[in-house]
């Protein structure tokens, strides 16, 4: 076998779960239908998400070179002229390095820039802890005026392109690289501020985001065979959060497990916990994510198994939570 590969297909051929989706083609078509769409990226434009667009519309791609902050602020300037600007950033660097540009230049100004945050979570786990992208939900959901979306799979990501047009201000779209157990057969209807209710159930609820939603569906289907009826909410809208769906799930099912490919500090679990506390809901509640420590390194599938981001472990935790009822 040859040793060469596309420089952006980091996991292709090496990881069973690697993302090989239709988003790139969807983004190309999106750009084809609307010539106001521009792309800015720090030396990542030729990758799988935007490569087809860049190839067809090279003059609508503004490469910032390896300068993430400059890319974000330039996008703001372009947006003041009415362009629909997308910024493709690497998950590990976009939100962390550019948190302040996102807040000051995009969110305070309410400019309609869409940040595609690719290779989120442990997608680049092989490359070292520097490439883990596990703090971005915590960072972005703390920024007023920013909308934060996290599609569960390729079909959901495709739907996010059009859905982002519902929002006047900036949107951060956290793309998952994982394709463990796709949630949707076709691009779903997306309503900003709502969760997708993808499984009905009354014994407990799993709320997942990104890969977490894939695991939630898999776990619910596994537990159904044991006679447990588990509701699954796809938390694709992290900010604004679907507070009503969380409260309803707490009241209806009495047990909530959250699942995310993100640190347990500040992510989906924290957000759901805040809602439960604010509403004084005494439900059994657990957060399943990555521990608040420096993580180890490996291929994504190995890391998912190592840290229990699997359907089996998600099911085990939900089973425990349900069994704890009085």
């Amino acid at each position, binding site marked *: 076998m040859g040793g060469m590969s596309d420089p952006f297909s980091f996991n292709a051929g090496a990881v069973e779960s690697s993302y090989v989706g239709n988003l790139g083609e969807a983004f190309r078509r999106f750009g084809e239908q609307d010539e106001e769409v521009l792309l800015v990226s720090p030396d990542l434009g030729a990758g799988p998400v935007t490569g087809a667009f860049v190839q067809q519309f090279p003059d609508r791609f503004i490469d910032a*070179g390896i*300068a993430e902050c*400059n890319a*974000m602020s*330039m996008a*703001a300037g*372009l*947006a003041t*002229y009415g362009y629909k600007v997308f910024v493709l950033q690497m998950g590990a660097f976009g939100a962390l390095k550019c948190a302040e540009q996102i807040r*000051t230049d995009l969110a305070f100004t309410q400019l309609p820039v869409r940040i595609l945050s690719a290779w989120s979570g442990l997608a680049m786990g092989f490359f070292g802890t520097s490439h883990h992208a596990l703090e971005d939900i915590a960072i972005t959901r703390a920024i007023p005026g920013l909308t934060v979306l996290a599609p569960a799979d390729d079909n959901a990501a495709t739907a996010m392109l059009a859905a982002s047009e519902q929002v006047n201000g900036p949107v951060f779209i956290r793309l998952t690289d994982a394709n463990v157990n796709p949630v949707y057969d076709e691009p779903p209807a997306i309503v900003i501020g709502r969760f997708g209710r993808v499984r009905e159930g009354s014994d407990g609820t799993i709320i997942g985001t990104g890969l977490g939603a894939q695991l939630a569906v898999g776990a619910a289907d596994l537990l159904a065979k044991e006679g447990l009826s588990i509701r699954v909410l796809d938390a694709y809208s992290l900010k604004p959060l679907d507070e009503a769906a969380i409260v309803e799930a707490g009241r209806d099912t009495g047990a909530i497990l959250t699942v995310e490919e993100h640190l347990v500090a500040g992510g989906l679990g924290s957000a759901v916990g805040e809602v439960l506390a604010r509403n004084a809901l005494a439900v059994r509640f657990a957060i399943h994510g990555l521990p608040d420590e420096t993580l180890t390194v490996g291929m994504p599938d190995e890391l998912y198994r190592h840290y229990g981001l699997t359907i089996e472990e998600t099911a085990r935790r939900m089973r425990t939570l349900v069994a704890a009822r009085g």
Partner: protein
Amino acid sequence: MNAKVSNQLERLREVDAMELAERSRQLRLDILDVISHAPMGHYSSSLSCAEILVTLYHHVLRLRRGEPGWPDRDRFLLGKGHVAVALWPLFAELEFFPGSWLQTFGKLDSKLTDHPDMHRVPGIDFSSGSLGHNLSVGLGMAIAARRRQKDHRVYVLLGDGEIHEGQVWEAAMAASHYRAGNLVAIVDANGSCADGPTESVMSIEPLTERFASFGWLSIEVDGHDPQALMDAFAQAMMSGDKPVCIVARTLKGKGISFMEASPREWHLGALSGEDLEQARREIRGAK
């Protein structure tokens, strides 16, 4: 291209250097007045860029009086956002907002904040406050204007301490790469940072050569000489596809002796009583 309208202010409009000098003196007095309504204000770094701002708003920029959102205006971004107080009197004079707003500076919920907010103040083309961002934003605007086939020019005023920010150099590299000949940076090189002289805090020299080496047309002028500034801005119009950096050598606290002597102490402060009167006398006397 634009129909002649009575409120139109054309680029490089006729004005003599004496008038700009007089307007700069008035702006310095206005800065003292506006800050006097607030608990404190940025004095010395506002005073250093008075001639630069006056030359831009009374000579260089294509604008419309009373129409701050006119789409075909030239853009101005205040990278060194802490001197917004020096813009407010100019904007009131251009009828971008009522003059009565000036007395609200520094009051709770005033539109006129210490750093400029584009959603609060008509005429602010982009918010600032975090140093180092606005050259990148201005480059985005310059590229967008060209894509829209507009002849807009984009001006960004930077502080010399702001030059320390790495993002400025990311933007400098990108601006020459994208041949943004419609982008002009002006560095208010007043030589002073919060910790001391800029050269002792973090050397930025040779500044003019550094911008030139990044592919910019780099022009060095006396930033308190309106004629020199007018000449530099005229030269900047003929840079072809090169972005232009005007390094304006200035004095922090210019016009007030005790601020010129201790520019750091008067970076942020509150003048009152005899000090305020002395400051006014000195500015009025500088003819």
